[in-house]
């Protein structure tokens, strides 16, 4: 089982919902990125998702767009993100997933990118603009080298395709809570429960983590009640790295979310 898989099963054994925290690499600065990631880990993150900045983040809302601009202004490159992971590995065993758009990977070279990910200690990839039917060559490379390639499924995904995604993904299945882009304050789709169920029915052992617009302990609890194995919090945390908050503030916020991950669910 991969490091990501183990993180989910450990959380499950402790009757917790796994907490996945997203931060953009190089924000507020490259040196402080490390400090911010470690704050999330101390706060109770089970998995760290690290954003690789791209000039055209089409799946992202205003907060992560702003973070991408900031990171690129700070000169962050895919190479530097990999170096950050290498450095993180000397401090923590937390599973690390790189979330980044496809063109920088294509430009780096899929094969070289996967190899570098493995050697620096990356555990998985999320490529938001590479749907299943375009991910053949990257998926093959990831499988051969033991890197997880996480697929996304949405409320609009038809049942048959949702089942294909649940079976094709590795590490976990990323369930998008609602149509749209990352961030923003939205209610939880009532359909979420059905989405979680259909993913579990298609691939029983595969953990599902819900993301997009999850910013508060209340939402974490709601998703926990709907049977999600994990929750992904991005924009709400990235915002703290943009507004001058300290790493202690970030750690506190993450701890509050982590607390909600083990609380009582609606079902008791």
């Amino acid at each position, binding site marked *: 089982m991969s490091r990501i898989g183990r993180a989910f099963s450990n959380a499950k054994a402790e009757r917790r919902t796994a907490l996945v925290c997203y931060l953009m690499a190089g924000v507020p600065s490259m040196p402080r990125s490390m400090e911010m990631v470690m704050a999330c880990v101390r706060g109770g993150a089970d998995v760290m998702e690290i954003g690789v900045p791209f000039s055209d983040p*089409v799946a992202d809302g205003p907060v992560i767009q702003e973070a991408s601009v900031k990171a690129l202004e700070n000169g962050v490159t895919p190479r530097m993100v990999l170096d950050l992971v290498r450095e993180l590995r000397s401090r923590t065993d937390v599973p690390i997933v790189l979330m980044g758009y496809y063109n*920088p990977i294509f*430009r780096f070279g899929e094969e070289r990118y996967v190899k570098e990910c493995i050697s620096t200690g990356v555990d998985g990839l999320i490529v938001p603009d590479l*749907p299943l*039917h375009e991910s053949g060559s990257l998926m093959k490379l990831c499988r051969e080298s033991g890197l997880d390639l996480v697929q996304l499924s949405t409320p609009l*995904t038809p049942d048959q395709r949702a089942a294909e995604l649940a079976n094709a993904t590795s590490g976990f299945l990323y369930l998008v809570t609602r149509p749209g882009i990352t961030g923003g304050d939205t209610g939880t789709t009532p359909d979420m429960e059905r989405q979680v169920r259909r993913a579990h029915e298609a691939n029983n052992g595969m953990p599902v983590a819900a993301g997009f617009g999850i910013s508060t302990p209340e939402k974490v609890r709601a998703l926990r009640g709907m049977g999600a194995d994990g929750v992904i919090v991005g924009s709400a945390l990235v915002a703290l790295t943009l507004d001058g908050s300290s790493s202690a503030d970030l750690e506190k916020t993450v701890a509050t979310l982590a607390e909600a991950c083990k609380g009582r669910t609606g079902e008791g």
Partner: protein
Amino acid sequence: MNTRFGEYGGQYVPEVLVPALMELESEYQRAKKDPAFLKELDGYNVNYGGRETPLYFARRLTERCGGAKIYLKREDLCHGGAHKFNNVMGQALLAKRMGKERLIAETGAGQHGTATAMAAAVLGMKAEIYMGEKDVARQRMNVFRMKLMGAKVHEVRSGSKLLKDAINEAFRDWAASVENTYYLLGTAAGPHPYPTMVRDFQSIIGREIRQQLIVAEGRTPDLLVACVGGGSNAIGTFHPFLDDRNVRMLGAEAAGEGLDTEHHSATLTVGEVGVLQGCKSYLLQDENGMIKEAHSVAPGLDYPGVGPEHSFLKDIKRAEYVGVTDKEALGSFVLLSQVEGIIPALESAHAVHAGMREAAKMSKDQIVVITISGRGDKDLETVFDMGVVQ
């Protein structure tokens, strides 16, 4: 349906849009074989759009160049003042057929936004247009036209504040609104099926050229010339002639301030292969795969990507692509106005320059057809501000 042109094209989009693109593909497949749909589109093309547009023998321009006979395909006379109408009418009718009442679109020069606003008005639909802040400033007349026809215009302030960023915002809107909204993409780029569908709707340009030139000269042209931003008027001009091996094709890209500077939009001439906004194609990008800002005096050309079929035609050497600088385009803008009394769009002026350059090298019994993709009224303020005309 084949999603690619050689290695180019594909469907690189967030998962949330995949079902909508699949639905669009199958609906388009049905529509293009449906006589009722084709008849309705043809009716709008003829009675509302003013098609067919003339193929005009430019006698004085020909004399000026002293080489091949130059014909101009007058897409500037199409309703709305540009070829954009051809694609918009087709897609808007498709949207209607799919039961989507809200249209969203991106626009650079404002021509596509204007055409979308027009189609929404005539079909009784809602239109919202995304336009970069910089383009809003330099194409004010088109912004006014869109608003007058009832469209809502969103100024885009992210990224380079140009066409590429307007497309990003339109995709972001669509990701949230896809259940009731149709994204009316304006060029032959983006994810499958757009490059194929837009090309099909624009191919009316090339089909008309073929028929009109048979009547006028009894033969096919020796050279077709069109400007290339995303490349929709060019692919519409070229595509019906792809199997005519004796017909050469030339795309004019914006070389801006020069290909040796950072300020151009010559994606095919000097770009490198990558993936942007749904498709694999040539791109302007840096060594880390970040997309570069494009530049051109013509707002409709400053796009750092290009339609995937052009990338394929370049690789197989079926079409050639050259850069035309801002200065050269401005020269042709003035020249065509003065020699033929036709004010071309700054975008089309790039094609005029490239076409004249080639015609001068060819013999008098040869024929060049240049597509005038749009009229230049929208550019008058820009050109006068530059002091080109005293």
